[in-house]
């Protein structure tokens, strides 16, 4: 095969792959703006925002999205604060069990969270925490922590100790030097961790599905599932509009941190701790 032919073959293959991946999206995009949308992505000349208008009400969109913002936001803030604190001694001191601790965290990131949901539910039920959003946020933060601590520690390692030494000379303790020197210098890292946790929880379906009891507490991930299983067979256009509204924040936030996450995938091969 000549070079040109190989190049053409590669381009054709990439085009086929891109089309195949775009395929399932087509229906959502088309159905959302077509007033008489069915399951088929059949383009017609009709165009309206009626589907969006139909779902923009308190029960369908506003309340679930507010719940999602509260749950994901609270989890992200709590995770960032707790992991930011934990990263400090791990990054700054030679701890006797520091390496063991980091390896244990890395091991924990591999455990399937889905698997522990039955015992978690049973625990929540026993201690009367079933249906409590704050208790669920604590659980979500704990499940995000192993990974967040890893990221935070790596960011913190990038802040030179010499800058902190200057603060110590001025009489600042670790609390002040952490708050005034280290955290501000790693602000982009803090933002990446926060957004990363937020986006993950935004899409989280199983945990709220299991741990929350009332529909008015549920985040959009669960509401959209309920909507889908109840009206999915009739209100396609509305389901599509709902999907787009719910998906947009995740996409926007992903694009925002994309640049910072870009170089990070080489870490499947090696991890710096």
């Amino acid at each position, binding site marked *: 095969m000549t070079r040109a032919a190989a190049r053409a073959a590669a381009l054709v293959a990439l085009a086929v792959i891109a089309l195949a991946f775009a395929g399932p999206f087509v229906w959502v995009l088309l159905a959302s703006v077509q007033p008489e949308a069915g399951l088929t992505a059949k383009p017609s000349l009709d165009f309206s925002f009626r589907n969006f208008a139909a779902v923009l009400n308190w029960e369908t969109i506003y309340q679930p999205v507010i719940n999602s913002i509260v749950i994901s936001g609270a989890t992200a803030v709590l995770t960032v604060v707790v992991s930011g604190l934990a990263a400090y001694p791990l990054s700054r001191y030679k701890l006797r069990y520091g390496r063991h601790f980091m390896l244990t965290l890395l091991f924990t990131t591999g455990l399937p969270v889905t698997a522990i949901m039955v015992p978690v539910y049973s625990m929540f039920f026993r201690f009367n925490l079933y249906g409590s959003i704050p208790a669920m946020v604590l659980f979500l933060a704990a499940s995000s922590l192993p990974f967040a601590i890893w990221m935070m520690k790596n960011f913190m390692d990038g802040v030179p100790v010499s800058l902190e030494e200057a603060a*110590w000379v001025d009489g600042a303790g670790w609390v002040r030097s952490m708050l005034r020197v280290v955290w501000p210098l790693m602000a982009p890292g803090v933002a990446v961790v926060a957004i990363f946790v937020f986006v993950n929880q935004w899409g989280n379906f199983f945990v709220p599905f299991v741990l929350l009891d009332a529909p008015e507490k549920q985040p959009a*991930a669960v509401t959209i599932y309920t909507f889908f299983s109840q009206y999915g067979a009739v209100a396609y256009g509305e389901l599509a509009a709902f999907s787009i509204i719910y998906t947009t924040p995740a996409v926007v936030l992903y694009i925002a941190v994309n640049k910072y996450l870009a170089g990070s995938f080489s870490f499947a091969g*090696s991890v710096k701790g």
Partner: protein
Amino acid sequence: MTVTTVTPPSRPAGSPVLAEEPRRRGGALRRLLPLLPALVLLVIFMAGPILWSLYISFTNETLTGSASVDSRFVGLENFVKLFGDDAFRNSFLLTFVFVIGSAVIGQNTLGLFIALLQRGRGRVVRSVVNGVVIAAWVVPEVVAAACWYSFLSEEGTLNEVLAFLGLSQDWLFTAPMLAVTLANVWRGTAFSMLVYSAALSDVPGDLLEAAAVDGASGWRRFTGVTLPLIRRSILSNLMLITLQTLASFGLIYAMTGGGPGTASQTTPLYMYDQAFRYFEIGYGSAMALVMLVIGALFSLVYLRLIKVET
């Protein structure tokens, strides 16, 4: 769960962790104080449920009936039941098929294939392909399920396309495992693609050129040079995607609900069914424990594979 660990500029080699301790340090306990909130959360909400599952999987805990107020120790009863349960065996087999089909074969191979094809392509081509593949990854799983549900359903897009070949059918009914496998390949390939793009960019170009000069064909260069160099990335990628796929719940649950019948009921769905529909919490926890042990084994293999520098 993802492997992304963002690399900041690393500390200059050889520089001490701390040139001088803070002057007002107050012993080891005080230095460890910032770790405390994280430890408390991890112990209560991560270690707690795991230990709790160890306990209740040996009891007859249920949510209804007499055992709900007064559960008792039943020894290995749940596990004996588990290994003799045809539905569990069915679910385990389906989980195996799902992991092999969608992760090991699907995502892994397709991800590597796309990463290879993209090498040396122009910026525009790369960003278009990356864009759609990553978009499928970023979309929340329930939305992904809705997309695929409509794409594959009886009057869906795929059947419209296939109608003129006479191949249209209700895919979610006739081939539910194929449907959820395809959906998961679609959703997860981006991760493998990104891992392999990074790994391939570390393969020195002059090595490949040298092999080409020696007359090695494209395939020979791939198997002889590229593959051995990215071996570690392949293995750890396989471990990570296996761990993610093993516990996959939302996508399958929203697409088929495990059905028709139990035709796509993987272990997480069977566990959910037993625990939350039949309220067999003890039995469900025994299943959870089996999944945790399998997950832990894969996670340990992953830890052995990667190089952790400290």
